[in-house]
């Protein structure tokens, strides 16, 4: 069994989601290799090797889209190398890549996966549907390679201690008109404190806060005091109170912190699918019937404008 992973980078390191996939692939396959679209493959080869990757096929991306170049690179290599499964993280670039590749190779996709099992030639992908209430397992039929996208945080990332992966450059790719899309500029939103997906405490706010100012006065300081990250429901992202990078849920980030604190969030299934895996959940909502209470270890039926300022004061007093 040979598994390929579409590797993504965060700066000069493989993304955590990539390492999660490598760890899982190692458990299932004898050969784990990565395909990467970017300019700094050499920097990734060491860390990927530690997670069991032996070869890193690397295509330069320049100002093209990562998903477009990644799909073209995989398409150019599959016939020769015949991977059984190709895994993608359910990220923006991962989704572009798996979509383009699926159409190019004429293979179906299973996406939003949260588990992956291999039994002989049967490859099964588990997905949570209906906002995480129901788990379905689907299998691929027809010819390989099988293409699956897995949500970040589905597996844990653990190094195995191998040497650096061999970097094999890939060039002369056929991008067609897809290659006419050009990245003009990249904008990185500023962030203080830990990353949302990695923070051990996440404080999220929702529409119940009433205003963007309340988010700044209640959510941000509480996250900061607890050394955590601030998150949000989609309602307030769409309303423009906070940037999209803070969104937790089906279309946002999946978080699994030690403590998740939901302030003025109703607990729509699409929100809960992104935070239900937290170790402990605290919710403050003035509606005692709010669905968020069905998952909260500590539920406070109350007004965020009354509870949170006192909480901030009490925590500050402790120093």
């Amino acid at each position, binding site marked *: 069994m040979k598994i390929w992973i579409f590797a993504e980078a965060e700066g000069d390191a493989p993304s955590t989601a990539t390492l999660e996939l490598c760890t899982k692939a190692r458990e299932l396959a004898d050969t784990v290799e990565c395909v990467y679209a970017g300019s700094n493959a050499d920097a990734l080869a060491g860390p990927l090797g530690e997670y069991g990757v032996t070869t890193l096929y690397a295509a330069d991306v320049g100002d093209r889209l990562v998903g477009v170049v990644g799909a073209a690179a995989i398409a150019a290599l599959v016939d020769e190398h015949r991977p059984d499964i190709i895994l993608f993280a359910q990220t923006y670039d991962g989704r*572009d890549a798996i979509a383009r590749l699926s159409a190019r190779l004429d293979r179906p996709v299973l996406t939003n996966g949260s588990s992956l099992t291999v039994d002989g030639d049967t490859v099964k992908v588990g997905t949570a549907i209906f906002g995480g209430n129901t788990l379905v397992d689907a299998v691929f039929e027809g010819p390989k390679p099988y293409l699956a996208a897995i949500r970040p945080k589905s597996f844990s990332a653990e190094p195995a201690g191998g040497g650096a992966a061999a970097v094999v450059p890939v060039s002369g790719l056929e991008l067609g008109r897809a290659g006419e899309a050009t990245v003009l500029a990249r904008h990185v939103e500023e962030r203080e404190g830990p990353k949302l997906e990695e923070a051990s405490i996440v404080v999220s706010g929702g529409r119940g806060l009433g205003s963007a100012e309340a988010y700044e006065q209640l959510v941000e300081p509480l996250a900061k005091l607890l050394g955590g990250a601030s998150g949000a429901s989609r309602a307030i992202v769409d309303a423009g109170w906070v940037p999209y990078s803070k969104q937790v849920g089906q279309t946002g980030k999946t978080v699994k912190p030690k403590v998740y604190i939901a302030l003025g969030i109703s607990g729509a299934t699409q929100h809960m699918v992104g935070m239900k895996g937290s170790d402990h959940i605290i919710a403050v909502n003035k509606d005692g019937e709010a669905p968020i209470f069905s*998952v909260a270890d500590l539920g406070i039926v109350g007004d965020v404008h009354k509870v949170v300022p006192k909480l901030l004061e009490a925590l500050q007093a402790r120093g």
Partner: protein
Amino acid sequence: MNVVVCVKQIPDPAVPGELNPDHTLKREGKLILDESDSYGVEMALQLRDAAGEGEVILVSMVPNQEVSGLRQALAMGADRAILVSDDALHGADALTTAKVLARCVERAGAVDLVLAATESTDGYTGTVPAQIAELLGWPSLTFAKHVELADGKAQIQRQTEAGYDDVVAPLPAVVSVTAGVVEPRYPSFKGIMAAKNKPVDQVTTADLGLGPDDLAPRQRIVNVAAAPARQAGEKIEDDGTAHERIVAFLEELKVV
């Protein structure tokens, strides 16, 4: 400016979802316009009106001839629709959907732009727009939170993990838009009346030149189970001291 908008008609998301005995999603009865697609419809109307000419053409694929969702989008101001409805599409996967929709785009005539949502509310595969682009051989600009057209090009702000990128591509192209990219209008009474008489071109997969081989499902659901439920814990009414309980809880967890 001719813009095709992919609009999915879905069961009311407020009603809990159900699966058929063969494990496919239940999509019977009245379907509504996926709210996620109302943004694409609005964006298309604004682009058509800014250009001062052209059409907004809806394309939709359903298993049951349903047009209620399409009528909602026609009432907003779209000009016409192509509806693919065919028993052969029952349980169609994302790539099959993309094949059908790509053929609809070709059927629509000279098209400058295809708009879709980044993911549907009920299926949320999130791959259909880029699959359509690949099948048409067009560039795709996905996850757009802002869209501008000028000089035969589409320029977007593309959502990224870290922030956003400015990305540009020459037309024709496929653009997928996130919720909130524009504010969708409510259909006016006049719009609702007019929608009743707008043309809906009802086609089958055979009309689109797709045969059973193109549509055969290549993935199968083998198991469905309820997810392990989380237990609700302690719930208290705030009597002015609830913050103390939160502090104590955080202390028990040793995070403060």
